[in-house]
């Protein structure tokens, strides 16, 4: 098992790099049919390897591989790849794979260098509610990441339209309306998942008698507030397009900052 895990750990970044290569070719070259086939195959292989690694780690540790930062990051990378596949399947965004899979490849590579180096979490955290909380959070992060990538692409295309720059990126990007709707959809989904995760987290903390409020919790509440406001403003004030994209990017930046603040600081 250890050899298999070591092999997967070595091959996974390579698999993601190959994916990015083919998706890059798909975006930047003319021969889309051929590149699309290779991109589809490469992402299927990378996701299968990633899934196999997560299952192997679970089998080796006899628990969900979510307890350390490295494991959580590896799981986040997997969620990002899944979210990319869902988007590709539901909204035909394969052309954007170079951008939407980029965060997955980055997180997976960073996670692998952290794996097995950290201390285990305290026994208090070994609750099944913790797993629900983490999975919902990571799914929300993945949805927010995709929304942020789409929002950034929206702003890129918006700028090109305003400046009348009809270059390759202009031609390859999907319509503004599609980018706007997709980023709104993924940010709303992320908001729902983040809300679910927060509710589970608060319930679990209260049940187990944990207390405390660290910068991370404050940051997450700020993130939630930004995304809830963005969704509400879109619906009620008609804040679509550029303004909406900027708010999504602001929310995502707040999310990154909140996570840089470190882990939860509860005490018992």
């Amino acid at each position, binding site marked *: 098992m250890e050899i298999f895990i070591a092999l997967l750990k070595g091959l996974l970044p390579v698999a993601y790099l190959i994916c990015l290569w083919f998706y890059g070719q798909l975006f930047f070259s*003319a*021969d*889309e*049919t*051929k590149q699309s086939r290779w991109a589809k195959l490469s992402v299927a292989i990378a996701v299968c390897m990633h899934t196999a690694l997560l299952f192997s780690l679970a089998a080796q540790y006899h628990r969900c591989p979510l307890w350390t930062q490295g494991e959580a990051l590896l799981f986040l990378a997997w969620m990002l790849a899944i979210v990319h596949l869902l988007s590709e399947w539901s909204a035909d965004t394969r052309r954007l794979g170079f951008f939407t899979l980029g965060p997955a490849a980055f997180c997976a590579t960073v996670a692998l260098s952290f794996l097995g180096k950290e201390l285990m979490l305290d026994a208090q955290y070994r609750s099944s509610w913790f797993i629900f909380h983490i999975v919902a959070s990571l799914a929300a992060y993945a949805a927010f990441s995709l929304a942020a990538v789409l929002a950034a692409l929206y702003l890129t*295309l918006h700028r090109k*339209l*305003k400046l*009348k720059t*009809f270059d390759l990126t*202009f*031609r390859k990007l*999907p*319509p*503004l*309306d*599609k980018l706007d709707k997709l980023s709104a959809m993924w940010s709303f989904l992320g908001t729902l998942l983040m809300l679910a995760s927060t509710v589970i987290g608060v319930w679990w903390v209260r049940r187990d008698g944990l207390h405390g409020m660290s910068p991370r919790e404050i940051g997450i509440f700020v993130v939630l507030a930004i995304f809830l406001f963005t969704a509400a403003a*879109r619906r009620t*004030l*008609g*804040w*679509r*397009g*550029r*303004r*909406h994209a900027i708010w999504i990017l602001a929310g995502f930046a707040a999310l990154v900052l909140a996570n840089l603040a470190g882990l939860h600081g509860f005490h018992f």
Partner: protein
Amino acid sequence: MILNAPSQPQVFVLGANHLTASVSLRDRLLLDEKSIQEFAETLLKDGVVKELSILSTCNRSEIYGMAEDPKAARTHIENAWAARRNVSEDEIRTHGYFLSETEAIRHLFRVMGSLDSMVLGEMQILGQVKDSYQLASQNGWTDFYLNHIFQSGFHTGKRIHSETTIHEGAVSISYAAVELARKVLGDLRGRVVGVVGAGEMGELAAQHLHKAGARSFLFFNRSMGPAERMAAAFGGESRLLSELQEHMGQCDIVISATGAPDIVITREHVQGALRHRHGRPLFLVDIAAPRDIDPLVGEIENTFLFTIDDLKNAVSGNLELRRQEAHKAEAIVEEEAARIESWSRALGVVPVLRTLREKYQAITDREIEKWAAGQPPELRTHLESLGRGLLNKFLHAPTTRLKQLGEQGDGSRASYYADLLFALAREEKQHGD
């Protein structure tokens, strides 16, 4: 006696196109489906032309054929064409072209790849060639050679379509407006289009938008007559220009093409319209000269304004890109033409291969007959199977090698030595006797 390949028919093309002939000559050379049927049958009747396919569109009329003597075929076709249509042989000769062998194949592949089209990259031609080939094939005018060449041509056309972007990007002003609208709004089905002014340009843009799926049109004009006429043509509504501000909020796309000397759509008009749009983007195209829409409109949030100069830039950019992609397409044509050339060369060894197989098949059959006489039928089946297997294995290497030599252009020398080594000619002569 050494075996000689029977004289192999050569491919040729005789025709005239937009580069070589005037519109009036092209019109006179044009053949409709019925004329093509009669003309093809006339040409094939006396055997000078062995196979043919006739392509006739407004930009080109071409006859692709196979003949043992292409020069004779050329004269024959020119005479028949001149007799059928109101043209002289001299006109065809002066304003047309005649190409044979690799040049003809390359020409066909360039046509199919839309490299020879009036608008570079206009892929409609591939469908037209397909139709003409289908007609020829259904009537039995094509056979082994032309079938193979046309199939390779379709493959070349598909490769050019999928491996290059030669067909991408609008190359007309009004279609460029539609493409930009799609870039902003996505699917145009169900979008509301407002056309300001009832001029030709506005009508052309409306036509393209209608084709792209837009179904709700509002036509604004100073007088109701022209607006009503356009509304009737596109199934929309007509309004007076003075009502524009009131209705602009409903429109997703506004195309302005009036002859007015002053600004017709101001920043205030658009800001007012956006209040009713709940953040939905507004796409505006100003194709009037002088301008109809205040340039400051382009600075408003969720508003995208394009002028005729922007559209011209988009078109020229697309044309330049098509020209760049044409280099890649030419390389594909060369690659595929070279493949056909090597296939054609390999055909030179086909008679030797056929004789070789026939000779050894006959030997095998005789031996099986000798050993199977008076034996149970199962044994005959086994012997036949053994004979077939051995024959295939023994002949595999010489067959492959002969084909390779043929493809490399050494077909005659290879045939000569194969004939000497396997005594094919003598055997044929004995059988002939």
